[in-house]
């Protein structure tokens, strides 16, 4: 019954968007309650659908659009968990935003854009074909642009919005290239499609992957990965994400932490069979993810802006998810469950951290952690909810992040045993840094002395409420959902006609099947029961691999404490690294990416190329056109003398013309031409 209303999951937020846009400023708080209610409606429908189809059904509705395309709704386990997470987290964030945006003159615009964003994100999730997904993908990008530039009178916000739009555009072009390639390849297979089947529908793609040439598969996979890298802020297209913190904090929480940036990870998970089949497809995913995880974590260490710390942390955690998917080369579809688990868990605690940071900023009126300190005395609720979020992010035992992130590290070890240890090393280092920078932030904001004279009050209950709910999930979700989640996500591709063994041969993976080689390689016997290897396989690792994440988390937190917690402070950060320390400078400057990308690449390479193109354009393309028009004008200058204005000349010309005509026609008659 709820399934019949699946279209309303997108429909309600769209309705809220229209209402807020046109009548928002007549309503209290810019009509924010409409957006929150619409999202809550979507959450209710999603929950209803969950109760109907869990654990072994999927919903697939579709209607024709163009000759070769359709619009459709596909809710399988993968889409369902995303729908639930997005509607849930976004409902809380919209509620919180009702307090946070209160009094902003653009509140109606904010809530309209936020509603549109919610609609497009949800549409992206349950699209049943790649084209539809791409359309919503672009809409999400647009909303991101609008919301980052929400305070568009601030030059830095306008610049950040532009940067985000252009950077993700690079990825989107690659994504579109991938879609076109995939479509061409699918079309050239000359499939006998049943009525209601279309070339770009996911089930159709899954079923016919094995027939596409492997080289083409790799190209397609790299194209799609490009899109995912752009949207999920992976290296080298991550530069927009930290700058995107110029938007309101709710935007950062909603778009740049919990939901939108996960679209890239979701895309890779959605197209997992394709990446699996493509030789080097998953290797590229793992490489990008593991590198980004460490790379962003190092930058998170030095940032002073509380939101930028969280932004780098987001980039880093997205890297973990990507790496988790890429590790699927060693463990098969199980990687989807592991990565998605981290995605969902991360969205809870990262939304919590961002909203908590927003609560702090709301009271303190600065983003700079150097001006905070001791905030915890005045904001108990914010402090303890953020502590839960930070512990979860750091991977402290029995918090959500512990179950999700550390599972990725553990299977990265398996990947290491089978293929390559680099991702494992990168991820472990990144996890250490994660614990350190998270608690550097928490200690320096909430403990110690007050470093400036800031506003000392707790935020209103409408903001604290969502924090508390999110804190409950950030703490308990991992423990509660762990085993069911893996098996449910594992069943995702069983609904489709996709043969992973065949695909793994095409992809040239070390494994013949999902489990055999794992056991052979680790030399231990893992129970290979289908559907529950998530928890089981983890036990196949040596004990120190199991224990390592816990040591990492606690060690990292203690290290941060030694530097930043006044109770156990042993070192002064400024003494360990002077202001001119090259490494510190490099991290603070974000590896000179701005200098490299803007100074060298944009102003040197791109501008230089543009100059050459400009010259060619002016001299050659415009040149011959200008020459032609100059010639025509010169010719006209001469020929217009004929218009002498002397009637007598006209008469003479007329008569002469007639005479000539008469002579010519009579001559033609003579020789028999006419």
């Amino acid at each position: 019954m709820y399934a019949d209303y699946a279209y309303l999951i997108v429909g309600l937020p769209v309705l809220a968007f229209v209402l807020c846009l046109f009548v928002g400023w007549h309503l209290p708080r810019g009509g924010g309650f409409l957006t929150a209610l619409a999202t809550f409606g979507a959450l209710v429908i999603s929950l209803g659908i969950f109760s109907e189809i869990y654990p072994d059904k999927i919903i697939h509705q579709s209607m024709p659009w163009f000759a070769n395309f359709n619009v459709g709704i596909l809710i399988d386990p993968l889409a369902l968990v995303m729908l639930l997470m997005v509607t849930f987290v976004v409902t809380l964030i919209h509620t919180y935003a009702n307090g946070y945006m209160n009094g902003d003159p653009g509140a109606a615009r904010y809530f309209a854009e936020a509603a549109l964003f919610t609609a497009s994100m949800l549409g992206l999730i349950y699209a049943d074909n790649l084209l539809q997904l791409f359309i919503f993908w672009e809409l999400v990008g647009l909303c991101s642009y609008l919301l980052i530039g929400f305070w568009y009178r601030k030059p830095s916000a306008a610049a950040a919005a532009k940067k985000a739009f252009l950077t993700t555009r690079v990825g989107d072009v690659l994504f579109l290239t991938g879609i076109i390639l995939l479509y061409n390849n699918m079309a050239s297979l000359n499939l006998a499609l049943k009525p209601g089947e279309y070339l770009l529908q996911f089930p159709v793609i899954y079923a016919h992957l094995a027939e596409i040439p492997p080289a083409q598969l790799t190209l397609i996979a790299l194209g799609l990965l490009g899109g995912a890298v752009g949207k999920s802020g992976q290296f080298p297209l991550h530069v927009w994400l930290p700058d995107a913190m110029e938007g309101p904090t709710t935007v950062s929480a909603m778009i740049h932490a919990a939901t939108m940036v996960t679209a890239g990870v979701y895309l890779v998970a959605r197209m997992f069979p394709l990446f699996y089949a493509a030789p080097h497809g998953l290797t590229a995913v793992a490489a990008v993810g593991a590198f980004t995880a460490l790379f962003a974590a190092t930058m998170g260490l030095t940032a002073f802006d509380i939101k930028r710390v969280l932004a780098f942390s987001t980039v880093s955690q997205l890297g973990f998810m990507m790496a988790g998917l890429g590790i699927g080369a060693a463990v098969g579809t199980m990687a989807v469950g592991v990565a998605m688990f981290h995605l969902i868990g991360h969205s809870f605690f990262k939304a919590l951290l961002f909203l908590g940071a927003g609560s702090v900023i709301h009271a303190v009126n600065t983003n700079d952690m150097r001006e905070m300190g001791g905030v915890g005395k005045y904001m108990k609720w914010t402090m303890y909810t953020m502590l839960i979020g930070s512990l979860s992010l750091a991977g402290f035992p029995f918090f959500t992040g512990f179950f999700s992130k550390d599972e990725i590290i553990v299977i990265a070890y398996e990947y290491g045993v089978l293929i390559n240890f680099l991702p494992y090393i990168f991820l472990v280092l990144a996890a250490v840094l994660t614990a350190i920078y998270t608690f550097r932030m928490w200690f320096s904001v909430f403990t110690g002395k007050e470093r400036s004279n800031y506003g000392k009050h707790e935020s209103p209950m409408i903001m604290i409420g969502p924090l508390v709910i999110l804190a409950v999930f950030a703490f308990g979700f991992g423990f509660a959902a762990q085993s069911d989640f893996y098996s449910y996500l594992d069943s995702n591709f069983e609904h489709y006609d996709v043969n992973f063994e065949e695909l793994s041969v095409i992809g040239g993976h070390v494994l013949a099947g999902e489990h055999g080689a794992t056991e052979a390689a680790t030399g231990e016997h893992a129970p290979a029961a289908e559907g529950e290897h998530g928890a089981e396989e983890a036990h196949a690792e040596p004990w120190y691999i199991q224990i390592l994440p816990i040591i990492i988390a606690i060690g990292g937190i203690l290290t941060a404490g030694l530097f930043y917690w006044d109770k156990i402070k042993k070192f002064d950060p400024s003494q360990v690294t002077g202001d001119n320390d090259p490494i510190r400078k490099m991290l603070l400057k974000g590896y000179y990416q701005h200098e490299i990308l803007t100074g060298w690449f944009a102003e040197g390479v791109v501008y230089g190329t543009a100059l050459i193109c400009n010259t060619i354009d002016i001299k050659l393309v415009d040149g011959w056109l200008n020459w032609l028009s100059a010639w025509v004008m010169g010719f006209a200058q001469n020929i217009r003398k004929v218009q002498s204005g002397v009637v007598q000349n006209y008469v003479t010309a007329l008569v002469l013309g007639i005479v000539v005509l008469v002579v010519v026609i009579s001559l033609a008659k003579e020789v028999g031409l006419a």
Partner: protein
Amino acid sequence: MIPLELNILLASTMFTIGLYGLATQKNGVKLMMCIELMLNSANINLVAFSAYLPNVNGQVFALFSIALAAAEAGVGFAILIALYRLYGTIDLDNINAMRW
């Protein structure tokens, strides 16, 4: 009865005189007169052929043509008067505002 050839000869002589005048004269009134000459040469042709065939249509057309010529002369002289008021002359060499 006057032979057809003489009629045609008269008409073409008149036409040529009119054309010559049109091509050489500068005075607007003279031009109007030349145009009338050419028009009437055509009328002579119409009447001559009408009598020669014999077919009354030609003479009817000549009547139309005369009426038309009268109207044309009215408009033409009205334009000339307007030009005179504007430029103080009807010498067409001096009236060249529409020229390049």
